C-alpha cells in the first residue's frame, strides 16, 4: 500500500482499541515522557520537547504544537516484551503450576527507529537461541507497532552511528512522519497488518511534496545527532582492551547504580526470587530485571567474580559493543542514548569508547 496522509490520530487510536489493543503512547508525567495508556491524541504531550545531555533531562515547551517533538524517554518497549517482574511457577509438593503468562494486546504508538532495532536485538536474545522464551514470543506477537520517525534527536542520541535510525525502515506495522503547516502525518504500512488498518482510516494519498517533506524530516534529524561513535572495528577494539587503564578511570566516577542497564532497551539480564505462601506452604519463583552492575551478580563461592566497579563497567561496555556480537551476531547497543542521559554522574558511553582507542 502506498503512503497516505492522515490528519488526526484519533481514528487510528479508535480502530486499534476496537481491535482489542490497549494503546500506549508518550505522555508527560512528572516532568518526563513516559509510555502510558492513551485514549485520544489529546493525551499526547503536544508542544513539548526534551533537552538531553549526560546526566540531564529537561522537558519544556517547544512552542510548535507537535506531538512527537522529543527523543527517547526512559521507558522503552522492553517493559512490554520483558516485564520487570513475572511469576515463573508455583510448586506445592509434587504439583507444579504455571500461571498464565501476561501477554496483553498492546499497540505502541510513537516507538522510534532505535527502539525497533532494540526489539530486533531482543528477538535474537529471546527467540534466536536454543531455548526460546514462549512468554516473550506471545508478548511480542501481541504488540502492534506504530513507529514515529524522529524529527528532533536528543542530545545523547547516536542512532546514525549504530545504523539504526533516525528513519524506521523495518519492523513496524505502521510508520508515521509528523509534518507541520498544516499539521499532518505521512503514514506508511510495514506489512499487511498495518495496511489493513490504514485502509480503514480517513486518509488522502500522499503527494510528492508530502513525501519530500517526510524525507527532509529524517535527513535533518540525521544531521543533528547529539553524539557519534566510530564503529569501525569496534568489536575487536573493545575486545582487545580488557587491561586498559580506562576502566579504572571510569570506575572512579561510576556509582555502579545500574541505571544504565535499567533504561537500556536491550539489556536482558534477570535474577530470580523465591517466595513461600505462609498459608498453605506453596512455593514460587519470580523473575525480575537484574544488572551486571550489582555486586551479587557474579557471586560464586562466597565472593563476586567482578568485585570492582572497573570490572563491572568493563563487562557492561564490552558486552554491549563486543561480546554481544559473539553471542547474538549483532551489536548490543542501538544508540538510543538513554544510558548517557540517565547516568546520575553523566558518564557518556560514546566518550568512553573514544578514550579506549
Amino acid at each position, binding site marked *: 500500500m502506498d503512503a497516505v496522509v492522515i490528519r488526526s490520530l484519533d481514528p487510528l487510536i479508535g480502530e486499534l482499541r476496537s481491535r482489542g489493543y490497549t494503546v500506549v503512547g508518550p505522555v508527560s508525567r512528572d516532568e518526563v515522557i513516559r509510555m502510558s495508556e492513551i485514549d485520544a491524541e489529546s493525551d499526547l504531550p503536544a508542544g513539548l520537547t526534551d533537552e538531553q545531555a549526560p546526566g540531564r533531562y529537561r522537558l519544556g515547551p517547544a512552542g510548535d504544537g507537535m506531538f512527537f517533538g522529543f527523543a527517547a524517554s526512559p521507558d522503552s518497549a522492553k517493559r512490554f516484551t520483558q516485564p520487570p517482574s513475572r511469576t515463573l511457577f508455583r510448586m506445592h509438593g509434587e504439583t507444579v503450576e504455571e500461571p498464565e503468562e501476561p501477554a496483553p494486546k498492546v499497540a505502541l504508538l510513537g516507538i522510534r527507529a532505535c527502539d525497533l532495532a532494540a526489539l530486533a536485538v531482543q528477538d535474537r536474545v529471546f527467540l534466536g537461541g536454543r531455548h526460546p522464551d514462549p512468554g516473550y514470543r506471545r508478548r511480542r506477537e501481541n504488540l502492534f507497532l506504530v513507529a514515529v520517525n524522529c524529527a528532533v534527536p536528543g542530545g545523547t542520541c547516536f542512532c546514525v552511528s549504530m545504523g539504526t535510525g533516525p528513519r524506521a525502515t523495518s519492523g513496524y506495522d505502521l510508520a508515521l512522519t509528523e509534518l507541520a503547516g498544516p499539521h499532518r502525518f505521512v503514514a506508511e504500512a510495514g506489512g499487511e497488518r498495518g495496511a489493513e488498518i490504514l485502509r480503514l482510516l480517513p486518509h488522502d494519498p500522499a503527494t510528492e511534496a508530502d513525501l519530500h517533506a517526510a524525507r527532509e524530516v529524517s535527513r535533518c534529524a540525521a544531521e543533528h545527532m547529539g553524539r557519534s561513535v566510530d564503529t569501525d572495528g569496534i568489536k575487536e577494539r573493545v575486545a582487545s582492551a580488557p587491561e586498559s587503564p580506562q576502566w579504572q578511570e571510569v570506575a572512579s566516577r561510576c556509582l555502579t547504580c545500574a541505571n544504565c542497564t535499567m533504561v537500556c532497551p536491550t539489556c536482558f539480564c534477570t535474577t530470580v526470587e523465591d517466595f513461600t505462601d505462609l498459608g498453605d506452604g506453596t512455593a514460587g519463583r519470580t523473575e525480575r530485571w537484574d544488572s551486571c552492575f550489582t555486586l551479587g551478580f557474579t557471586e*560464586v563461592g562466597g565472593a563476586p567474580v567482578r568485585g570492582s566497579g572497573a570490572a563491572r563497567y568493563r563487562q557492561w561496555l564490552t558486552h554491549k559493543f563486543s561480546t554481544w556480537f559473539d553471542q547474538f551476531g549483532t551489536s548490543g547497543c542501538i544508540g538510543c542514548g538513554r544510558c548517557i542521559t540517565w547516568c546520575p554522574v553523566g558518564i557518556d558511553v560514546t566518550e568512553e569508547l573514544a578514550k579506549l582507542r
Partner: protein
Amino acid sequence: MTAQAVPGTASQAVPGTVPGTVPETVPETVPPPWPQTRPGPAPEPAPRARPMTPAPYRVRSRRPDRADTVTLSLEPVRGRCAPALPGQFTMLYAAGVGEVPMSVSGRTRHGGYVHTVRAVGAVSEALCAKRPGEIIGVRGPFGTAWDLAAAEGLDVVVAAGGLGIAPLRPLVRELLRRRSGYGRISVIMGTRTPATLVYARELAHWREYGLDVQVTVDHPDPADAGWTGPVGLVTRLIDRVVFQPRSTFAYVCGPEPMMRATAAELTRRGVAPERVELSIERNMKCGIGWCGHCQLGPLMLCLDGPVVNYGRVAHLLAVREL
C-alpha cells in the same frame, strides 16, 4: 563431546561386579556403566511447558558423605529423565529456598540422577537436608560435556580439586567402560583435609581397575593421624603420575586457581592447551542463556560451558575479574 560407544571398546568394559557389599541405593561401585542407557524407547523427559519450570523429582536415597557433603539420587515423579553426558549439570530447586547448578555425578540404576552436594549456603543446605521421599525440582541437563573422543588413544590425566570430582566421576566411569580406547589413565585429586575426601570408596575401586589414583591434602588433619600421603597442592601430584605429555589429554575441575595452576603446569610440560579441558563455575540463575549471569567474555558458560577447552579460554582466564 560424545558419549557414543566407540567401536571395539565395548567388550573391554570393566568387570561386572565389585567385591564387597553393593549399596542398595546410591551405588558407589563402578558398574553399572555410566551413562546407563536403557534398552527400549528413547527416554522422555517429564512434560514441561516452560524452560524455567522445574520437574518434580523424588529423593530416592540420601547418603551423607564426608564432612558437609551429601550424595542424593533423584528420580522423576512423572516420566523419565533426559540422558546426561559426563560434565553436564542440572538446576536443582529446593522449594521456597532457591535453585542452583549441580553437576550430574552419575545415574541411578533406575534411571535417575546422582548428585553430590556440599552444603555451603541456603540452597545447598536445603538440598542436603532433603530426606528420601521428599521432592526436589530439576531442570536440565544443561551445558557442554567432556570430550571423550578427543582423548582416544592418548594418556589421560584427570585432575580434581575438592568437589571438582563431582562432574569428573561420570567421566572416569566412562573412561573405564571404554578402557581399551585410552592409554594410561591417572586421577590426581586434592582435598582440604583427609576428612573432606569424597568418593573415598570409589577411588579405591578405580585403583582396583588399574587407574593410578593419587590424593593430596592441604592440611593433614591433626585428628586423623593416619594420613601418610602427600601434602600440598594438586599440581605437585603431576610429578607422581606417568604420562607422555605430547600424547596426553587432561580433564580438570576444581577451584579456579587450582585449574589455572594445573593447566599451566600441564602445558608447561608439553601437553597441548587444546588437549586440556576445564569445567568452570560461575553464578548461574537459569542454565539456558536467559539470565546473563554466567558470562565469561564472549562465553555464556551455561551454554558454551561449563566444560571448555583451555586452549580457547586461557586468554579469558588470564584476565582478572572477567
